[in-house]
């Protein structure tokens, strides 16, 4: 009986250690995946865009990246407390107005932010493209986002294209990478 108890204790201890190792490995793999995306884009590859499903900031349902398949997607990570985002927002809205009828969708992901602050920001800058809320920042790990704003481009086939733009995106970058995203099918 004592031997059986000892065996159970040993198995429990081994399980706990295995669980901790698995958790550590998963964390490393997630970080590596995010690093891998940037490296793959630099090599000219088009890796699959990490999936997500997030609530709309306005509170009317949720949006998944998979549901946007078939369109070129401009993914912009931002927050209301981010100063450069204020400079970038009018440019994004203007580009959205130019491209919205050409099979392109802009998606703003508001990260680590108060919903109320983000709604005021959207109102102040007159943003009309879909804005999703990611208060916990669940997407930034998958994409390896290290600061705001940051912009990624997803082709019609759901793969990332072009480059990862850290800091306010320029018109020339928007034009070039949207063209590439539309070409991916």
């Amino acid at each position: 009986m004592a031997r059986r108890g000892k065996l159970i204790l040993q198995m429990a201890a081994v399980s706990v250690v295995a669980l901790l190792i698995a958790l550590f490995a998963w964390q490393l793999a997630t970080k590596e995946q995010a690093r891998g995306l940037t490296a793959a884009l630099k090599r000219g590859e088009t890796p699959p865009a990490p999936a997500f499903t997030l609530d709309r900031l306005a509170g009317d349902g949720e949006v998944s990246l998979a549901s946007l398949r078939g369109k070129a997607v401009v993914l912009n990570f931002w927050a209301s407390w981010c100063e450069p985002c204020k400079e970038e927002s009018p440019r994004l809205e203007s580009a959205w107005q130019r491209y919205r009828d050409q099979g392109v969708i802009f998606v703003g992901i508001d990260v680590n932010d108060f919903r109320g602050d983000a709604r005021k920001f959207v109102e102040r800058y007159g943003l009309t493209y879909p804005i999703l809320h990611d208060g916990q920042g669940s997407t930034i790990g998958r994409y390896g986002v290290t600061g705001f704003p940051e912009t990624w481009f997803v082709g019609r086939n759901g793969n990332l294209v072009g480059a990862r733009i850290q800091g306010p995106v320029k018109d020339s970058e928007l034009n070039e990478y949207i063209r590439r995203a539309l070409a991916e099918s």
Partner: protein
Amino acid sequence: MRRALVLVLVAAAVVVVPAYGSEEHPTLADLGNEVICPTCHTTIDQSSSPIALRMKAFIRERIGAGDTKSEIKDKLVAQFGEGVLAAPPKSGFNLLAWLLPLVGAGVGAAVLAVLARRWRHGKPESPEPGPSSNGRAAITPDLDRRVDEELARFDA
């Protein structure tokens, strides 16, 4: 005995009364080390990042509105998820995070107690000969003496 009881009651009051006050009428300092800044992953009292400053302002606003500590924490969790709390809530799956260290400490203490007892009682002053490693009867002191005598005779 009565004196000891009074001391225990006073000690309990010292611990419980401020905790109750902090729950009903929290200060920024009460919450500053219990809330995590989501971008810098330190508690907000150690951060001056834009979101940490905004969170401090939010906490001040809610304190001014008369919210309790739990209400403020709930509102922060609704915005940023449970990761915003420095310590996991004592409910649901998170309860494991509180219970496992206690269970671990308990198991560790029990194992130590058992080992200590074995060490204390398991070693007799003059150990009786146990079974030998080959499974046969152990050598007795008498047999040991006879072997020594035989070996001495053989050497001579």
